[in-house]
């Protein structure tokens, strides 16, 4: 009998005890997961591409839960490794940007703030960087479409279209934020309409391709109030701030009960400036955790970011830097300044206290350097600047020549790395 008991103990009970001791089986997280369904945002109940407080929550989560967003690329495109520039002139810009969410945060009220801790970003295997005609900082200089297709791992991004270059993995959400409330919609819409009237670059509400269609589409109840996702605003959104890395916390003011947290447009890597208009764009799985800060939203103008050494980890250990001052060609008014009807600028070679023109000056020098010293085409150089060159303000006091520098992380060149 004893022999039989020992036999059962050794061969039946003990193995099952040890099997359950595997670390995989020991869990503590409460997960709220928003998965993708279908090929594009339009096929996906967890996806939308306009902002409005009436967009219903895709999920609910408690503070402390691990909220897992399966996100789509910024253009909701169907680019792939064999995509070419010929694919760029047909896609629908009305689909920009597909966002995953919104998530209703239990207990959060309008006037609170929401602290969002970025826990993890798992990249897709493919990403792209494009030049879109009419878009980007140097849209007058680069009017033709162009695409670089990237193969992604967490070690680096490489591309047949960018030989000898590996861009380090420094992922962050290009877009993350909370839904605006009704007062914010009216306020922001009005100020943007005023700017449009003055000739500024504004994308007013446009129902073509808008999702959710029932709310924001051609026959949507609120189609004239659904805001485009292109500009970042007080609710965050398309901030494109690369320092918002894994491990940092972003605090948003909440404008509706439940906040309506969303994320998307994840960037594998981006230079400060995102000058071509795109970073290394990709789909991903983003994990965040949130905390409610009661009443703190009323004191905030814009979201803020809290970080530790993430900003240091991103710094290049070897760099090349160009310096820009507000110089321009005679007879030229850069696209950024045309809306001001500033004909006075036309024949000025030197402009006063102008960081935009300084940035342009620094960037054009960097492109020249990459072409001359590293053999890149001008388009490749512009793309590399978009994903690995940081535009930085040097000073804003030495009138009239404020300085912006362009800093290239030289470690992107394989020849400089082991």
């Amino acid at each position, binding site marked *: 009998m004893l022999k039989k008991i020992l036999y059962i103990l050794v061969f039946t009970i003990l193995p099952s005890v040890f099997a359950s001791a595997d670390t995989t089986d020991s869990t503590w997280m409460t997960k709220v997961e928003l998965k993708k369904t279908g090929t594009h945002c339009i096929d996906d109940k967890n996806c939308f591409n306009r902002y409005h407080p009436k967009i219903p929550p895709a999920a609910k989560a408690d503070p402390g839960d691990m909220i897992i967003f399966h996100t789509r690329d910024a253009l909701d495109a169907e680019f792939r490794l064999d995509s070419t520039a*010929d694919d760029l*002139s*047909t896609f*629908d810009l009305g689909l920009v940007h597909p966002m995953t969410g919104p998530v209703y945060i239990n207990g959060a009220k309008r006037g609170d703030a929401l602290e969002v801790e970025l826990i993890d970003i798992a990249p897709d295997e493919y990403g792209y960087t494009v030049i879109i005609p009419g878009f980007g900082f140097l849209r007058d200089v680069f009017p033709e479409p162009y695409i670089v297709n990237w193969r992604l791992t967490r070690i680096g991004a490489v591309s047949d279209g960018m030989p000898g270059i590996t861009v380090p993995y420094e992922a962050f959400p290009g877009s993350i934020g909370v839904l605006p409330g009704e007062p914010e919609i009216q306020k922001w819409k009005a100020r943007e309409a005023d700017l449009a009237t003055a000739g500024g*670059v504004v994308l007013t509400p446009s129902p073509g391709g808008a999702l959710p269609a029932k709310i924001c589409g051609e026959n949507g109840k609120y189609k004239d109030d659904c805001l485009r996702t292109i500009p970042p605003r007080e609710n965050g959104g398309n901030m494109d701030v690369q320092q918002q890395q894994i491990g940092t916390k972003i605090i948003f003011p909440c404008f509706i009960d439940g906040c309506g947290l969303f994320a998307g447009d994840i960037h594998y890597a981006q230079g400060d400036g995102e000058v071509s208009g795109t970073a290394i764009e990709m789909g991903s799985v983003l994990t965040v955790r949130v905390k409610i800060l009661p009443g703190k939203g009323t004191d905030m103008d814009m979201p803020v970011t809290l970080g530790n050494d993430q900003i240091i980890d991103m710094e290049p250990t070897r760099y090349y830097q160009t310096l820009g001052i507000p110089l321009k060609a005679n007879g030229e008014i850069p696209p950024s300044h*045309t809306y001001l009807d500033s004909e006075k600028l036309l024949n000025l070679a030197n402009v006063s206290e102008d960081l935009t023109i300084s940035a342009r000056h620094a960037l054009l020098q960097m492109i020249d350097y990459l072409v001359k010293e590293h053999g890149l085409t001008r388009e490749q150089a512009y793309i590399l600047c978009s994903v690995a060159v940081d535009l930085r303000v040097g000073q804003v006091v030495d009138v009239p020549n404020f300085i912006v520098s362009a800093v290239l992380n030289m470690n992107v060149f394989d020849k400089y790395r082991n």
Partner: protein
Amino acid sequence: MFGKLSILRFVSIFVIYILLVGHAPWGAYQAYRQQHLLIMSTREDAPTYPFSKILVKIINQELPEASARAARARTFKRVQSLFSTGQMPLVLLSKKNAKALIKGKGPFKKYGSANAQILYIFGDLVLLVQPDFPNRHAWLITNAIVQAVDKLPGAISPLKVKKITTIHPGTLMVLNGENIPDLK
């Protein structure tokens, strides 16, 4: 066959359009579509894209002012949208899909029919054009194709094209030996 003045007229409406919409990035994007002669194809009709590149090369040799480009749409849905709204007035499709686009059947069933005329035929591929595409522009493109017809695989003879009842009037004018029409 057509002087500098004709070429200037050919591009002038595009330049005016660009100036009007240049401020907004999306507007400038639309302007790009007007600035170049875009030959649309689609991933969902596989032979169309490689042939569109051949066609673009030939057109740019014969008519460099057109600044032709290939433009590949990801889906039939996008083809229908861009073509029927006149954003891209030229599309290359296989015969079966060209008929389906015009009748709003097959892969286009969900999106409705589209008015279209034939500009040229290359074996199983049909270059469709919007009926309101200017006769002058259709004349110029057809003329470029006819001048290089031997270099275009499967291109049927101009005589055969002439017999098609649904060809664009500008195409017929070239094939009848008529002079280039004015831009109306």
